[in-house]
């Protein structure tokens, strides 16, 4: 079990990546990174499949992948519950399965899990915000606004809980308001406007992703209050539209990278395919990086 028959006629490897949703900047970056990395291997055919943010679509996509019989299946599961069975099915069919980033129910259902933990990112952000409040208000106290992604999404919950598990230990730090902005810059801009009207004192806006933090910034700038508030984001993508650039531009005070995990996946995946003796660990965690004005320019350029 778990080992694939090695057919002698076969030349080259087929790697299928089941992406939960291509059409999102973070995912697009992940795809690009994968493509670049795999293209360094001439004998690898790399295919990306997009589940368009739909569990059942991803399930059937993996079912299709099983029929295609690849040498490596990488799955970025849309949600933990629904994808478990089908990933287990792939593994049982003899296909090595890398579970990327979100975990799934029951570790038996994947070969290895390469992840970065949203909860620890939330904690990093929380610790950073506490520090900033100390600087700003002289004590760990202040008012926070959460701009939240689509409720009910696991990563969203963890980014929230991570941060607040840290901040809740300080009685002076309170949540002033929150708004659900569905990960969108435009929603965040509109909703933040009302929050600014209703709440005169806000110290930090914690956007659960960078675009929402930027949306909050736009609203504040419109009201001339962007100087009084710190904007913190998560994701820290590269490129003009990414969060790192926003730190460079002085829009965000900080962002916390949500690692693409692609380097690690390619490294481990290659070992699994090429080295029959290699047994991967069950979990690899890739650490988040804090991007602040002190390191932003450097990160942006390299």
């Amino acid at each position, binding site marked *: 079990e778990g080992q694939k028959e090695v057919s002698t006629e076969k030349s080259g490897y087929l790697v299928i990546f089941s992406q939960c949703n291509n059409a999102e900047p973070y995912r697009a970056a992940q795809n690009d990174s994968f493509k670049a990395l795999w293209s360094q291997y001439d004998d690898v055919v790399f295919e990306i499949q997009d589940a368009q943010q739909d569990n*059942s679509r991803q399930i059937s996509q993996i079912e299709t992948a099983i029929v295609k019989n690849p040498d490596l299946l990488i799955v970025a599961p849309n949600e933990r519950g629904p994808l*478990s069975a089908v990933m287990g099915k792939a593994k049982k069919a003899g296909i090595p399965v890398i579970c990327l980033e979100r975990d799934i129910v029951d570790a038996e259902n994947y070969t290895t899990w390469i992840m970065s933990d949203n909860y620890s990112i939330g904690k990093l952000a929380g610790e950073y915000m506490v520090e900033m409040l100390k600087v700003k208000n002289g004590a760990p106290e202040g008012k926070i606004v959460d701009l939240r992604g689509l409720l*009910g999404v696991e990563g969203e919950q963890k980014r929230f809980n991570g941060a607040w598990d840290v901040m809740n230990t300080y009685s002076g730090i309170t949540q002033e308001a929150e708004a659900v902005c569905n990960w969108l810059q435009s929603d965040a801009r509109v909703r933040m406007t009302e929050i600014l009207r209703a709440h005169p004192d806000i110290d930090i806006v914690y956007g659960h992703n960078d675009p929402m933090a930027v949306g909050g910034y736009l609203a504040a700038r419109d009201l001339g209050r962007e100087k009084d508030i710190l904007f913190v984001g998560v994701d820290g993508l590269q490129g003009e539209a990414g969060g790192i650039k926003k730190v460079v531009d002085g829009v965000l005070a900080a962002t916390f990278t949500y690692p693409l995990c692609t380097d690690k996946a390619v490294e481990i995946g290659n070992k699994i395919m090429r080295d029959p003796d290699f047994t991967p660990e069950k979990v690899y965690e890739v650490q988040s990086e804090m991007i602040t004005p002190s390191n932003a320019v450097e990160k942006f350029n390299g």
Partner: protein
Amino acid sequence: MRLNEGVQSIPAVFKKSTGTLKKFQSFTGLVLILFLAVILSPRQHGTGRILFLTPENLSDIFRQVSENGIIAIGMTFIILTSGIDLSVGSLLALAATLCAKILTQMNPSIGQPLHIFLAIFLPLMLTTGFGALYGLLISKLNIQPFIITLAGMIGLRGFARFLTNNANIDIGFGDDISAVFANLISPKPVVITTFVVIAVIMSIILGRTVFGLRVKSIGDNSIGSRYAGIPVTKTLLFTYALSGLLTGVAGVLHAAQNHQGSPNDGVSYELDAIAAVVIGGTKMTGGKGSIVGTIIGVFIMGILTNTFRLKGVDINIEMMAKAVIIIVAVWLQQPRKARSKG
């Protein structure tokens, strides 16, 4: 003297053959899609068979379209009354979460079979009830279905999230009651059979019962229906309740298949369902349409998606190509205008 000899002079044979032609016509879109699917399909890794035509893939498609198919069947009835139901996505999420909640978070001492029965039955009751409520509000308050079901779409999504406190409810893989439930409901044959049975029954109800005739007559001429003394309120109530019930069934299947009740699921399902109905030839203005048409619409969409997926086409290209193919398929299977004046 015969009043209209002119009409009678058309030979019966010819009339028959145009009938067959028309019937065939409504399948041409599907045939085109099948044709495309076979052409575009990659070969199976190893065996070299046409991947699309493998029994596994065909049954996969069948299962994949089941949820949308079941919802679209209910939607067909509603659209035939010239109504619309925007809330099916939220209703599905509500049914799925309630089902998962009953399975995992309640512990009545009524024995496993009864517990599972409740986990299926109560969500169905709830969705049927909301459907009936829509029907009542639409006919009693005389508000357009779009608004009532839009309110349902928003409100019930909120309600589903409220019920689960924004979290997903996992059904899990142990060997507890949830697992029994999932193993009972989620296998391919169960899902496909449910879909097929519902399709057959509903097709009979629409085509062969008084209720079906009334549904069509309301959409065809609502004032005329009142003049003829058709119980409009009752019929609308039943129609929306039926759609609610079917959506509930899809929701329970959804929970079992996904091992989860997620309050965020089902977003934009209303669009998929309506699209299938309309592609299947049912007029948005009501009165005219069939379950067979809807099933064709469901498969046109399902096969199209499957084909692109097998081929591994970039989603953006896929979407652009889909747009064109949908239009061509619908255009092909549209009955050629009998009357040029229409």
